[in-house]
């Protein structure tokens, strides 16, 4: 799993490339620490290239979301595939994130 973070204005975009499974989640959690720091602004999780997510990945998403909620920021999940959308649905995450 590869994470590419870019900053533009108030917006921090993290591109998640590959499978966010349990083995990958530890690394991703570390990679996304900058997003937690930037949670007061707008955080974008670009899932256009994310093929798979397991509960460990969802937990990282939730961690970011919780940080944003504390700091008054905003989390946007962008370009999720139908498959991941269904996982979000199953877990009630659709209600927690702004999906674009």
């Amino acid at each position: 799993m590869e994470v590419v973070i870019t900053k533009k204005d108030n917006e921090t975009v993290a591109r998640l490339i590959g499978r966010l499974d349990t083995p990958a989640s530890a690394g991703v959690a570390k990679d996304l620490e900058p997003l937690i720091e930037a949670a007061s602004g707008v955080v974008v999780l670009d899932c256009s290239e994310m093929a798979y997510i397991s509960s460990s990945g969802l937990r990282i998403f939730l961690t970011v979301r919780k940080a944003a909620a504390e700091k008054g920021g905003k989390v946007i999940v962008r370009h999720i595939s139908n498959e991941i959308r269904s996982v979000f649905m199953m877990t009630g995450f659709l209600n927690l994130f702004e999906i674009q």
Partner: protein
Amino acid sequence: MKHSLKTLTDLKQIRKSAGLGLLIVIVAAATLEATALVQYYFSQKGIREEASMRAESQMEATRNQIMDVVNQTEAAVRNSIWIAQWALSVPDSLHRVAQRIVEDNPVVMGSTVALVPGYSPRHKLFSPYVFKKEGELVFRSLATEDYDYPSQEWFTKPIELDAGYWSEPYIDVGGGEVLMTTYSVPVKDRSGRTAAVLTADISLDWLTDLVGNVKVYPTAYSMMISRDGHIMVCPDSSLVMQATVGELVSQMEDTATFGELTRTMLSGASGSMAVDYGGKTSIVYFSPVERTGWSMSIVIPEEEIYSGIRRIGRMVFLLQILGLAMLALILWFLARSQIRYRELNERKDRVVRELQIASGIQMSMVPKIFPPFPERSDLDMSATIVPAKEVGGDLYDFYIRDEKLFFCIGDVSGKGVPASLVMAVTRTMFRTVSAHEDSPRRIVTQMNDSMSDMNESSMFVTFFCGVLDLTTAHLCYCNAGHNPPMLLTDEIRKLPVEANLPLGVMQGMVFIEQEIDLNRDDAIFLYTDGLTEAENAEKEQFGEERVVEVLHGRKSSEEHLKNISRQVRLFVGDAPQSDDLTMLFIHYLGADSSAIQVPAVSEHRIVLHNEVSQISQLEGFIEAVAKDRELDLSQTLNLNLALEEAVTNVVLYAYPQGTTGEVDVLARVGVDWIEFVVTDSGKPFDPTAAPAADTTASVSDRRIGGLGIHLVRTIMDSVHYERRGNKNILTMTKNF
């Protein structure tokens, strides 16, 4: 009480037997007596006939001798008649005729030719008499005044009868006091006138000897009486010619019989008659002597006749008594042995009956109802016990307490009743001790101590005791000298056991406990050496190799035991069962094995270590599974997600930190379903028991955990956890 009852029945028996014996003796005695009587009667008849024959033949012989003399005398006299006729004209020559008769005939003692008075003109009376005296011939005339021969019987009778006449016997006074008789015949001259009487005297001395010596029986005697009833010969010589039978008869008590007897005798008849005389019965045989008018008789006392047969009769009677006594004795012995035999039989029957009861009791001591735990799906058990005799020394037992299967098998040294008693004690002790002990070692140790304590007959028991934890499949066991059970896993091998000493050998023995983890579907086969040591006619033993051989193949425990029994019977053939044969088959099926597995089309398996990185391999694994089912991406990813969540749970939480463990993942692909079985040997953990995640909670309320199992539950159609043995098994199914 029981003893007196027994004696009473015995008494009855003896009385019954004695009665029967008495009856037999009486019947035998009656038969013998009847036979003896019939025989006696016929013998008596025969003996009487024989006596009569003997008497008659004796009399016949005697009479013949008498007749010889009589005939001789008569012939001598008759032959001289013509000479006498010729000499009549010359009376002086008549003495020559008499002389010639005496000289020519030794039996004739004297002779005379007596002229009828007046016949001779010269002699009024004329009778020249010639007789023998001391070998010399003496001549004398009988024509004396005092004799008056013409009036003598010997002279008058022949003339009167005109025939030869035998005179009454008489004692010759002049001639030496001998018994004599005279035969006289009339002599006629040429004109036919009776001119003289020619006589011949004969002595009857020989008659006394002849008749007196007739001895048919020792005490029998003979008699001869004359025509007039004079006694001629009789044992009492004083009576000879002194008495007549008539006089004697008048002195008898039974005059009538004697009178008839003498009348018959004197009438010239022959025959026999029984008479009582002097308190005795005698048989009188009588027969006449022709011409002389004499009657001869032989008197035989009846007891003399029958003395032989009576002696025999007495002997027969004695023998009969002896025989009957022996018969009675034999019957008594027979009756006694019969009673004893019956008693023995009864005792035998009683023993057999008691053994049957004992057998029943013994069999009721071991569990006999199979399947023993029909409500349980994790155990399939069967056992069989076949004693070589009515009762045996083998035992097995099992029961479940606190989800633990306690089981044992044992073999008491020896066979029969003593062994069965020890068996009963052993079984009871197993139940008593195991009721509060979970450890096979402690069970065996306590049993050993108790049994050594009371083991005076020094019988010991080889014993194997096991405790199988049905939830963990953990088996603890302790062996006490028993042969190792067979362990049936993928292969068949002996369960590794410490030998240890049998129970009851020595107190304070230390027993070593062993343990092993069973897997689902493993089985243990316990048996006594009656199986391996079953011998055929060739003294060949069934042996362990055959046991291993017949244990192959997947069968229910009952089928296994039936099969083994059949194989042993086939092997042994007609040879008698030498030892008790006991078998116990425990098939551990694992928990919830009742669920019938639907056959899968394909199966995939992967075994991972408890490292997070290993989870990545699931992607490829799922792709292979998806290929079988041609699943779309969404379905594949969902399955991947569910499986990953399940596996992650194990990898992260099942094994203590720092230890390695495995996760076994089995994917079974069916026609329209896929099943994942995730198995680990970690600590018991039921993920399905975790609280459900609240998917509706707000961001701040939302908890970090609980998502995994939530996803598994949401994606899969059924999720089931079970702890089987030391394993956690999570089964998840997705239907399409």
